Each structure stands twice: as structure tokens, then as C-alpha cells.
């Protein structure tokens, strides 16, 4: 198994009397894309800020590359590229000039690093447009360019596709995927858009009201999407008795007086319907169902769901 690049233990943040992050245990493995999924205000940004040392930790611990950040900033920070909230730049400078400042401060070795990263995110090099005149999408692209300028091993991206048009979103998605596959970068990405995370992430953490409800690989989560037969009958008690006695069905659940869920999807439903009818049980409907990831997230977040 790949080593952990980010590990948090019981990470907690309290503002006044409000606990915004509650005992979060996050595990981000090398070379994988970890999607932190949660609704607005779930605590995603706060978790990322705590990981980066940009906000104090009330209790708990964070390990980055197996080390504590405190006291190792000069060793750890150059290995990380990050966008937290809206990327900020100097409004009186162009995109190129802004990146040149950050390249100088970071001591970026490659002479044409700025030109290369601008090409990667699709922004023009030495353009005369000032940052203050940039659209939200262009600002976001410049933020991504700045995050990868020094070729970091770990990228922490807080909602990086905010403000991008659909084509831009797809481009950024492909680009992040390439970074992970071709350059073996580790990515921690946050989003409130389920489809975005499922298209990109290898591992998913579901954060809700500051609590990490679930952490698993996407493949494992998809396995949890249960398939079942939804059966609506006049009397569930009688129907259950028939199913147990005639069809030896034990894997089912009674939802209410008229609804049953059968988890054995190999059952011959024509035969089941016929038998129930002969036992004077009316079959109102029977259908095969398949929970989507969205249904699953609705379930784990208490029915509120994620966009």
C-alpha cells in the first residue's frame, strides 16, 4: 500500500462554541487523488487550512509527508502547491508578472517555468491584461498555475473548478488526472459537486457538518450501491411469509405496511407475482432498483444530499 502523504488524527477546530471540524481522520495516499466532498459550510476549507497550517488546530494532529508541519515549514511547504478559497494576486500586475513574483520568492529553478505553467492552464504568456481585469475563470486558472509553478509533490486544491465554464472544468479535470497519472502527484481536492469528485477522485471522504462520515475508495463506494427489488403489496406481513416459505427468501427488509425491499435480484419476479396473487395478496408494483452514489450520499448525510 502507498505511503500516506497526509494523515490527520482527531483533527478538531472550534470557533467560540461552534465545532466546525470534529475529530476528522483523513488519509491521503501517495499518487492518488483524494476528493473531499461536502456541502457548503461542511468544513472542507477549514480542514485544508489546518493541514496547511493556515489556521490553528484546536485539537488533533496533522502529518504531512510523515512529519509535523510545525518546525519543518521550510522543508515541507516547497513540496506543496495549494489554492485555498479564491486565489489572490496583485491586481495592478499581469498574470505573467504575478507568477514571476511567486517564482522569484520560491526560487524556482527552471528559467521558463512561468511560460510553461501558463501554457498548461491555457493562459497567454506576457499578456498585457491586468489581474484586476481577469474573469473568475482566468483567476482560477492563474491560481492553479501558481500552485504547480514549483513542481510540487502534493497539490491541495480547494474547489479549483469554481467559476470555470464546462469546457474549462473538463480541461482542469483532465489536467489534474494527468498530474496524478503521469507525474505521480498526490492531490487533495475539495468540492461540493458530487459528479466532479466521482469523475476525478480515487478516494473519497464525505464531510458533513464538520464530521468525516465516510472515507473510502471510489470503487468501494460504488460497490455499496445496493441493487434490490422494490415490491409494493397489499399486506407485507403475509407477503413476507409467502416469500420465506415458498422462495426461501431471507434477505429482505420491510419498509412500511405495503413496501418490501428484496435484495436477491435473481428472483423470478413473474413467479413471485403469480404466487402472491394466488395467496390473495395484491401486487401493486414490482420493480428492479439501483441506488446511485447520490442516493448513497443522501443516506450518509442524513437525507440532505450533495449537489
Amino acid at each position, binding site marked *: 500500500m502507498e505511503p500516506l502523504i497526509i494523515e490527520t488524527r482527531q483533527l478538531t477546530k472550534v470557533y467560540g462554541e461552534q465545532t466546525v471540524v470534529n475529530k476528522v481522520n483523513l488519509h491521503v495516499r501517495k499518487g492518488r487523488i483524494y476528493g473531499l466532498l461536502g456541502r457548503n459550510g461542511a468544513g472542507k476549507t477549514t480542514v485544508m*487550512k489546518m493541514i*496547511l*497550517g*493556515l*489556521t*490553528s488546530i484546536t485539537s488533533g494532529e496533522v502529518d504531512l509527508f510523515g512529519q509535523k508541519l510545525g518546525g519543518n*515549514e*521550510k522543508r515541507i*511547504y*516547497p513540496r*506543496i502547491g*495549494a489554492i*485555498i*478559497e*479564491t*486565489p*489572490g*494576486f*496583485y*491586481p*495592478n*500586475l499581469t498574470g505573467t*508578472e504575478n507568477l*514571476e*513574483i*511567486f517564482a*522569484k*520568492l*520560491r*526560487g524556482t529553478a527552471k528559467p521558463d517555468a512561468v511560460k510553461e505553467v501558463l501554457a498548461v492552464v491555457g493562459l497567454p504568456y506576457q499578456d498585457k491584461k*491586468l489581474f484586476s481585469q481577469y474573469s473568475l475563470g482566468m483567476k482560477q486558472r492563474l491560481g492553479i498555475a*501558481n500552485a504547480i509553478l514549483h513542481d510540487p509533490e502534493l497539490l491541495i486544491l480547494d474547489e479549483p473548478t469554481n467559476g470555470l465554464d464546462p469546457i474549462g472544468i473538463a480541461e482542469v479535470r483532465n489536467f489534474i488526472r494527468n498530474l496524478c497519472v503521469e507525474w505521480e502527484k498526490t492531490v487533495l481536492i475539495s468540492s461540493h459537486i458530487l459528479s466532479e469528485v466521482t469523475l476525478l477522485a480515487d478516494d473519497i471522504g464525505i464531510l458533513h457538518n464538520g464530521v468525516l462520515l465516510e472515507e473510502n475508495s471510489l470503487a468501494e463506494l460504488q460497490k455499496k450501491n445496493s441493487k434490490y427489488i422494490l415490491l409494493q403489496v397489499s399486506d407485507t406481513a403475509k407477503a413476507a411469509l409467502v416469500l420465506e416459505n415458498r422462495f426461501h427468501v431471507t434477505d429482505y427488509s420491510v419498509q412500511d405496511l405495503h413496501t418490501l425491499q428484496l435484495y436477491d435480484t435473481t428472483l423470478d419476479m413473474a413467479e413471485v407475482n403469480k404466487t402472491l396473487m394466488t395467496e390473495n395478496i395484491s401486487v401493486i408494483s414490482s420493480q428492479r432498483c439501483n441506488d446511485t452514489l447520490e442516493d448513497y450520499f443522501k443516506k450518509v448525510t442524513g437525507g440532505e444530499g450533495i449537489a
Partner: protein
Amino acid sequence: MLNLILTEFLKLRRRKFVWLMLLAALFMPLISIFYFGGSSAAEIDPLQFYKWAAFSYTPWIILPFVLGLLCTMLAYDENQNELLKQLWIIPVSRMGYFFSKFAIVLFYSVCFMLLAAFGSIFAGVISGLIVFTAESVAFLLIKCLEIGFLAPFAMLPVLAVAVSQRGYLLPVCCTVVYTFLGFILMMVAMYAHPLSSMTAILMRNIPGVVLNEPVNLAKVFFCIGIWGFASVVGTNIMLSKESRGI
């Protein structure tokens, strides 16, 4: 540190107001032409002219006010545009950040006073009010460099407020109050305020200037030093809190 200072210069691109503020250095030389307008070169001692043109309201009020505005402008963008987060994770040290701003203020202050000096010479000589003497010009240049070098140290409290605040209102208000307080305290409690102390250093050996009491250099430097030290410590605490979201 050199990189930080270089990038501070890069950040000033297209900041026309920063360079326009330098013109304030020529205000008192121009006023002096009108003030001494009725006199002839034979009547005015060059040092008397320079005292008006370069050593009066320029170091007392104009330079501190301009430096206060510069401090505010230097810190405003980073505070307002969420840039500090990006700087801390480079990582840029809090004190490196503070002292790089101070270096710009120091450089600007020296340029401002040199411009005031050359403005005074030109205003006096070209208008025919004074004669050009090497001795008086040398004195003027040395004094201007003295002011240009000391003023940023005296303005450290304002720089501290500017880098610790998100907006510009408080730093600008502080600049106004701080500057006028320095001016007012000059004759009553010159060792209490860094700007008063700076003025005391400036005035100690200008011919014709009489102070209430002889200048005690140790007290003067102690005053500037203690305020400067408190500003640096305060900034470090404030930036650490800010960077950790406390």
C-alpha cells in the same frame, strides 16, 4: 531577503500614485520661493533658505504623512486580496515580509529627501534668492540623508499598523494622528514620540535653531529604538495570529 525586497519593487509597477507622491518633496522649496520672494541673494543666507525649504515642514509633516500613505499602500493589496496565505505557504517569514516593506520605505524616504534637497538647491539658485556654496549644499545633503534615513525608523509604528490591518482607514487615520502628535510633542515632550525625537536629531546642529533644552542623543535613540522594537514585536504577534487564523 534580497529576493523579498526585489519583489517588493516589482509589486510597485503601475502604482503611479507612489511616484506622484514624490512630488510632495518639492512643495516646500516652491513655497520658499514665495516666502523669500522679496529678498535679494545678498540678504539671504543659503542655510536660512534651506532651513525653510528642506528642514521645516518637509520632515515634520510632509515626509511622515507620505511615508504613512506608502506603508498603507504597500500592505493594502496583500491584506485585501488574500495574498498573505499564499506568501506564508511559500514560505515567507513574517519578519522577512515586514522588513522587506521597511526596506522599500527606507529607500523611498531617502529618495524623497534627496529630491527635496535638489529641489531646494534649484529653487534657491534658479530664482536667484541664494548663491550656490559647496559648504551649504554639503550640509543640506547630509541633513537630508539624515532625515531620509531616520524617518522610516520613526515611522515603524505606522508600518506595523498597516501590515496588521485589512483595510486602509485605520492606517491612514493613524498616520494623520501620529504625524500631528509628533509635531505637537516636539516642543513639550520630544523624547516621547519617535517623530519628535527624529526632529530633535535634525535640529540639534542647524545654525539659528534654538531648542528648549539641549538634545540628549541617548534618549532620542532610545525613544526611536523602543517604539521600533515594540512595533516589530507587535507585528510579529499580529501576523502570526493572522496567519494562523486566530
